[in-house]
């Protein structure tokens, strides 16, 4: 008897997304479910954890275990889940504001800790759910909304891939929602790769950043093989203009937790606290 296999649609729930028409997150949802199916995962062996924001609604739209957690803390929840249930495939997802501002510190230390999970950030360089404030990845001079300061924030945009490398992430890639098949392949590779895998997916917010429609023309496949050399990856990322898609770095660090997963029975742990 063959084992049951699941198609991408089996990983989608019956809850209908409330994203705007044309939002890139629809395609990211499709890429995630396609990657799950291509990897032969099962819904009950998979979990999607998120924070807060438009893209963080994604656990509701997937038919897996899920946790729509609190703002910026998705990685904390996801790491805890993976350490408690190493048998689960854990995918953490959210947006650039959730992940790099409110959750910026968790991001740094999740890279360092290198728990075996995949972190997807749907980056649209704006806080969409709260109507268009600049996020950490917003261009410093963007002021097309009254929600932005005149002349822009004047702050250098956060470079999540370079920071992930510096902090110790074990796999670094960039995808584009306009290339859902290519993005699905990247996500599948990220899940397969041991340790903390970080995938930034450029996902246009055509409501508050209408000019991002042009990303379809500006995004390009990275023209070189991924490197396992962090120094070489650093040089590449420091000259990266934010439009190169593909796997940029594959590290070989050992995942956190291989030797730290609790092996004691719950009754033994209880006994330690007996007065």
């Amino acid at each position, binding site marked *: 008897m063959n084992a049951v296999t699941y198609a991408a649609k089996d990983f989608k729930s019956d809850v209908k*997304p*409330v994203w*705007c*028409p044309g939002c890139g997150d*629809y395609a990211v949802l499709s890429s995630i479910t396609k990657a799950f199916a291509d990897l032969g995962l099962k819904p009950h062996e998979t979990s999607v954890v998120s924070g807060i924001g438009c893209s963080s609604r994604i656990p509701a739209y997937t038919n897996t275990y899920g946790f729509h957690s609190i703002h910026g803390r998705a990685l904390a929840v996801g790491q805890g889940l993976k350490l408690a249930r190493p048998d689960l495939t854990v995918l953490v997802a959210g947006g650039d504001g959730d992940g790099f501002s409110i959750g910026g510190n968790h991001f740094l230390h999740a890279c360092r800790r290198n728990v075996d999970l995949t972190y997807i950030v749907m980056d649209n360089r704006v806080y969409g759910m709260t*109507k*268009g404030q600049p996020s950490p990845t917003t261009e410093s001079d963007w002021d097309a*909304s009254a929600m932005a300061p005149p002349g822009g924030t004047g702050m250098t945009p956060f470079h999540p891939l370079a920071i992930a490398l510096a902090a110790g992430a074990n796999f670094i890639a960039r995808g584009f929602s*306009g290339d859902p098949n290519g993005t699905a392949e990247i996500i599948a590779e990220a899940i397969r790769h041991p340790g903390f895998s970080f995938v930034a997916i450029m996902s246009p917010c055509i409501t508050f950043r209408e000019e991002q429609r042009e990303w379809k023309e500006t995004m390009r496949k990275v023209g070189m093989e991924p490197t396992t050399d962090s120094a070489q990856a650093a040089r590449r990322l420091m000259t990266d203009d934010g439009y190169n898609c593909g796997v940029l770095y594959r590290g070989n660090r050992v995942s956190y937790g291989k030797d730290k997963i609790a092996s004691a029975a719950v009754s033994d742990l209880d006994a330690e606290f007996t007065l």
Partner: protein
Amino acid sequence: MSGSPDFKAITSTAELFAIVRLMEESSAERYRELAEAFEISCNNLETAEAFRALAEGEDRHAAEFPAPVGPLGALKPWGEEDPEIADPGAVHYLMYPWHAYDLALRHEQETLAIFTALADATTIPEVKAEALRLVEREKGHMDRMRELRDIQPIPPDDWDEDDDPPNWEASD
């Protein structure tokens, strides 16, 4: 981000049918997503209905091809961009049903171009014959889509002007 079509990847009519069915199914899924988005997020019910009708049409097109038996390999002969699947970046929250059918017409045109190129490029007689049949089929789809578009009310010139836009300026 587009890749060049790899017509040599299609080595049999069975593979071609599987690819076309997958294209139609994916297209139906995208139109259904758009229908839901226009209904749930925008309360633009007329355009939602147009996308729903397009999704049902694509469902019927998919059913014209046999479901493949067994697992499919990585069938992506058109590169990364499937011409049959609506580009989500091409929609606007204020668009009219006319625009929905016009978008669908453009995608049918692109699909026709792909099948025409396949018929020209393939060296396998059976695949060539089927590709030519698909060209005729797509011409029929285009005619039908043009009819459906042209019976819709034509949108006003200022259809995309919003008195209460998402990105309001400080002076508004």
